[in-house]
């Protein structure tokens, strides 16, 4: 039996993007149901959940002003870079304030999202205690199941013969994993750098293997959070080339020459890879507590050989090699999969269906939840128009999916890597979303507007 939910939308996941989608759908006057697999909201930031990938020491790497929901700022009592505990409390108060808890089902896993007649969707959910499955039909679905929970594990020659422990950062919840051991951290994403630093503080020896040299940005430079300075330069509309020069000189002045620390010289320009924000890594390299290494050549027993011919005895390898987007409940064809990742207009709309939207499939060079808010606003405003004037909404959708291949790189050429599938330059992206919203609003016209 299928329960017809009429004009309601379903939202998959109650992380920040799911919450924002749910709130904005309700705010434009639509009905909406949110489904969450875990027993609490927060998604990745719900530390105790099975699929949460934050570790005990996780803090934000972007500051509050453009990381928070713009219509629900983080408390003034929070620091510039809040911890994951604070972030989780923040999401809870957001959900309480906007009355989302009444619309959320916890401990409820979405097992199938399947198309029904008239662009509608059948959503089958399973109660994780009783195992009982229920199918409801919705006018549309917002998928916000996150893209940082399904581990991507690399394969190196001899990896199967390695006698030490192989772990992915997905299993890394605290420094207990590395305490007193000889540790190899693989990958220089923000997690890789955090884990390397934590390992430097707790392990016997720490090696850090990276494919290339990177720019390690400090959290604070010249007495201010460095991302706020970066946004100031963007606000002043300085050209990319000038910003590159300024960033590199500030890095040189405040952190120094990476090569003198024994790190490799970056093989790319600034803004071509996702920013790494870590003030401590270079410090520990300077103390010998982190030994930088190039890519792994092969494993052999308890030894790891690197590309530069060096080798090290290792007890634990922590692969901080990232995650892949994974949609176990939906046929991939609906998300315009290219290889192992969806290619969507604005990272939201799929060419395969006008009533399916994805939120959160972004990796901004800035804070996340300001963008979560505007993605939610866009989807909700579109959904409202769809209910009110389907033909106008269809025009908007058709124009939108013609831009499926448009990326928002801020003028830079991102390095070709699974790490940059969802990379966006936040200001360029938000300007596009704002234009979309203005178009939608001029199409609906039923809104009260002040001059």
């Amino acid at each position: 039996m299928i329960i017809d939910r009429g004009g309601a939308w379903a939202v998959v996941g109650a992380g920040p993007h799911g919450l924002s989608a749910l709130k904005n759908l309700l705010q434009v006057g639509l009905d909406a149901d949110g489904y969450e697999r875990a027993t609490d909201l927060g998604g990745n930031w719900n530390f105790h959940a099975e699929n949460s990938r934050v570790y005990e020491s996780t803090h934000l790497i972007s500051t509050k002003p453009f990381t928070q929901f713009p219509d629900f700022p983080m408390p003034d009592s929070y620091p510039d870079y809040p911890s994951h505990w604070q972030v989780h409390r923040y999401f809870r108060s957001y959900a309480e304030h906007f009355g989302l808890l009444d619309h959320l089902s916890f401990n409820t896993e979405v097992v199938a999202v399947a198309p029904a007649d008239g662009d509608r969707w059948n959503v089958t959910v399973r109660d994780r205690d009783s195992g009982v499955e229920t199918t409801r039909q919705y006018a549309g679905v917002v998928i916000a199941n996150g893209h940082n929970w399904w581990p991507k594990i690399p394969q190196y020659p001899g990896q199967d013969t390695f006698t030490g422990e192989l772990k992915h950062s997905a299993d890394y919840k605290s420094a207990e994993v590395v305490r007193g051991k000889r540790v190899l951290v693989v990958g220089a994403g923000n997690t890789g750098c955090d884990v390397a630093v934590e390992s430097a503080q707790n392990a016997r020896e720490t090696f850090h293997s990276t494919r290339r040299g990177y720019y390690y940005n400090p959290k604070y430079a010249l007495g201010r959070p460095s991302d706020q300075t970066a946004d100031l330069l963007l606000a002043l509309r300085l050209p990319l080339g000038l910003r590159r020069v300024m960033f590199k000189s500030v890095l040189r002045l405040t952190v120094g020459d990476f090569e003198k620390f024994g790190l490799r010289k970056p093989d790319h320009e600034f803004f071509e890879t996702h920013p790494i924000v870590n003030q401590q890594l270079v410090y520990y390299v300077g103390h010998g507590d982190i030994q930088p290494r190039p890519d792994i050549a092969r494993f052999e027993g308890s030894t790891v050989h690197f590309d530069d011919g060096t080798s090290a005895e290792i007890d634990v390898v922590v692969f901080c090699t990232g995650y892949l987007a994974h949609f176990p409940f939906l046929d991939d064809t609906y998300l315009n999969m290219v290889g192992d990742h969806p290619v969507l207009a604005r990272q939201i709309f799929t060419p395969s269906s006008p009533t399916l939207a994805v939120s959160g499939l972004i990796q901004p060079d800035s804070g996340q939840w300001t963008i979560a808010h505007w993605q939610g606003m866009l989807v909700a405003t579109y959904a409202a128009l769809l209910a009110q004037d389907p033909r106008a909404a269809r025009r908007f959708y058709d124009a939108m999916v013609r831009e499926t291949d448009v990326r928002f790189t801020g003028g830079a050429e991102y390095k070709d890597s699974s790490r940059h599938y969802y990379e966006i330059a936040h200001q360029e992206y938000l300007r596009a979303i704002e234009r979309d919203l203005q178009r939608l609003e001029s199409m609906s016209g039923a809104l009260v507007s002040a001059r």
Partner: protein
Amino acid sequence: MTSRRKSSTVMRMWDWSVPPVSTHREVLSIVPEGWIDQPRASRKPPILFIHGLAHGAWCWAERWMPAAAELGFPVYAVSLRGHGDSGGRKRLGRTLMRHYVHDVMQTITEIPQQPVIVGHSMGAIIAQLVADRYQPRGLALLTPAPIQGAAYTLPRLIQRRPAAAAKVLVGGTLPLGPEQLFCNLDETTAAMYVDRLGRESPWAQYELMLPHRIGPVRCPVLVVGTPDDRVVDERAVTETARAYGVDPVWLPGIGHDLMLDGGWEKPLSVVLDWIDERC
């Protein structure tokens, strides 16, 4: 919709790159007993009051807050930075309207559900700027500072109160006395209230001169004015109401500070009835 382009609601460059520093915030509140346990859908919505130029949260606490709480509304009033018992007095000379918006947004996040926002005079402009980024349950604008910018009032101010005009132009606080604020108060009470007025940020005052382009706003809007207002003229009220496509409610016989003046019960009941009916 307007032909003139409004500034971006998405790209908040200055808030991102130079965020307001936090200050101690005075928030007065009365939450009726048992309110929190009532079902969310049927209980009275919270009301957040925003005071006007040189005032403080105290102006709402005198009369309106206890009266509204008595009728079951949870009521909150914030003193903007540099006002009332909030901090930031020393930085008042560097305070902008967006700092006040920040203070109100911070207060909103501490309220258990979306409030109706009631702004008075300059507070009405702040309330509208807040509604530009946050959807309140309702937006009530009482004797609102002109949405079209107060610059047009300057010639008349210069004519009628040249000393006051000169003071404002050099960054002093607009002098407000009993004759501007009240119609029906005895001298002692009026003097006591006027005595509680503080200073205003010169920059916020200058910003009041400029036009504000706001919207779209997706909540019920109420605009209340009084023909006996000697601070905000009828044109400001009419323009504000027109911007939101509503008719203003006119309440003759009461002064600009309609939450303190004799006869304060009438405007309060207009606001509360509107909340009951529309929000």
